[in-house]
């Protein structure tokens, strides 16, 4: 008996669904922390997406008003806990701008090395976790394997693996280490004996050489994977005007085709750190992109991060080559009791996730009257509402994941 096909209009009537409210989070694994998305869905289509935040609010700004600068640095670590070094740097630079401090060349070069290594570590997590959001588990493990080595190198430099408090007002707490035992992860990957001793610089260079080769593999695993392209290309398209109006920054802004990076376009106190270095700022459209890709979609945001990772490898190499011949000390002394002038300043730096701003109001005391931390992820997340209108439910993790948010920074 032939199967009788029904009138399509009847079928459509049969599967018509009521609107439903879906709570995604705050404990959903693909929401990158305690983010709650309230979705109004009609079947598989999302009509409205409202982010609810604040589950990780720890009053970091209020605490900052009661502490001297160096005491507040550990709290900045815990804002963006995947890029603690870059947060330390942003906050230290804001204090230095307020106090009018000049740093020796050596301290500045050290900061470039550390900040760019931090950027690599952060983008590795961003890449791995994005694969995880889209159902590909293995890139996550590979990314964490490489990140582990950076954490080991950071541990040799400052003793901590996640919350460093290494870069501080006036430079860094310690100089870069000399001879170290090779990090276990690096020994396993390169075939060295576990007790091999080498300088910290050599270990870092060895790691970078190894990482550079691996990037091609990540591209095979994700960037040029046809399932990955189908999940990301042409989805979550954000035009440049929207990105600017919503205050997006970092890879999210550049993914929409806006050529802007504070390392080049920021304020002089920050840009002079990167003077004389040779690096590119990736901005779509990319020649090597698959044909389905549209400027401003998930794929572009992801790819910008991947290219930045490679550029950061180059930056670390250049800074490491320069470091031994730099002049001055790795820090200028800074007293905890230093009184802040009765003045105020705002400074933004390019963190891996975007422009992190610190606004300080001094009042003649060691503690600032106001210590404001403007979060880049806060602005990047605010765009999810308009970006997720009319998309499929399964694309929500793909879009939110492509923004690469860290809730610790949003809620502060």
């Amino acid at each position, binding site marked *: 008996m032939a199967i009788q096909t029904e009138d399509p209009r009847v079928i459509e009537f049969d599967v018509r669904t009521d609107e439903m409210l879906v709570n995604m989070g705050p404990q959903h694994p693909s929401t990158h922390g305690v983010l709650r998305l309230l979705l109004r869905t009609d079947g598989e289509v999302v009509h409205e997406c409202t982010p609810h*935040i604040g589950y990780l609010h720890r009053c970091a700004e209020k605490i900052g008003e009661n502490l001297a600068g160096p005491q507040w640095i550990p709290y900045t670590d815990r804002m963006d806990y995947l890029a603690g070094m870059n947060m330390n740097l942003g906050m230290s630079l804001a204090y230095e701008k307020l106090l009018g401090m000049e740093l020796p060349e050596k301290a500045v070069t050290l900061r470039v090395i550390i900040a760019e290594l931090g950027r690599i570590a952060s983008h590795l997590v961003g890449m791995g976790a994005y694969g995880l959001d889209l159902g590909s588990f293995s890139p996550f493990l590979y990314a964490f394997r490489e990140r582990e080595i950076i954490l080991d190198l950071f541990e040799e430099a400052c003793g901590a693996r996640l919350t460093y408090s290494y870069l501080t007002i006036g430079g860094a707490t310690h100089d870069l280490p000399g001879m170290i035992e090779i990090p276990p992860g690096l020994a396993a990957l390169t075939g060295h004996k576990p007790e091999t001793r080498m300088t910290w610089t050599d270990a870092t260079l060895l790691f970078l050489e190894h990482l550079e080769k691996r990037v091609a593999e990540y591209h095979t695993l994700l960037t040029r994977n046809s399932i990955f392209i189908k999940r990301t290309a042409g989805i979550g398209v954000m035009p440049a005007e929207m990105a600017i109006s*919503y*205050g997006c920054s970092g890879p999210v802004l550049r993914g929409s085709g806006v050529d802007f990076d504070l390392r080049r376009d920021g304020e002089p106190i920050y840009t002079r750190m990167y003077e004389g270095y040779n690096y590119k700022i990736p901005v779509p459209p990319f020649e090597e992109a698959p044909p389905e890709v549209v400027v401003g979609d998930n794929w572009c945001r992801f790819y910008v991060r991947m290219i930045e990772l490679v550029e950061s490898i180059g930056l670390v190499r250049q800074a490491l080559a320069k470091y031994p011949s730099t002049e001055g000390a790795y820090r200028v002394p800074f007293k905890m009791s230093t009184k802040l002038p*009765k003045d105020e300043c705002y400074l933004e730096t390019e963190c891996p996730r975007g422009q992190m701003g610190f606004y300080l109001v001094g009042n003649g005391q060691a503690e600032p009257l106001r210590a404001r931390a403007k979060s880049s992820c*806060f602005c990047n997340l605010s765009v999810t509402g308009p970006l997720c209108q009319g998309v499929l439910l399964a694309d929500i993790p793909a879009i939110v994941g492509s923004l690469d948010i860290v809730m610790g920074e949003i809620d502060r």
Partner: protein
Amino acid sequence: MTVSEIHARLLDRFGSDVVLTLNTEAIDHWIEVAAGRMADVAAFLKQDEALQFDNLTDLSAVDYLEPDPKKQKKFEHEPHVEVVYHLYSFPLKHRCTIKVKLPRWKDDQEGSLPEVPSVAHVWAIADWHEREAFDLMGIRFLGHPNLLRILCPDDWVGHALRKDYEFPLEYHGIRGM
């Protein structure tokens, strides 16, 4: 454009009743604007050909109050709150800081929040920044589409970044320190 030139242009358009002082002694030069006309000034800042401030990089609020009576003599400011707008222009690559000064409480009645027009229709990001300023500093943004608390729970009492804020001893049966 320098901040002084921006100030001159604003003064030209709005007059000295709206565009108040210019401070060029601070590290980041700033312009003070009358609270009631902030929305008009914001729209002009974004649309004017010579200004084109398309990016609101930060919106925050500061509470100028010294709660400790012993330190009050050294404190030079009159008690007030300020809303601070940090602006950047992508096409013209210049920065500017705009400030609005408000009384700590509207009509000096403790508990009634000071008011300033919302700029959320000019820069979309102001929506969330204003919600945060309302939540933590207690400033009411008139004309805001959805002025609810953003970081604290909806039933939270008080505004945590006010200098005279008292930490609650209990919240829904959860005891504090």
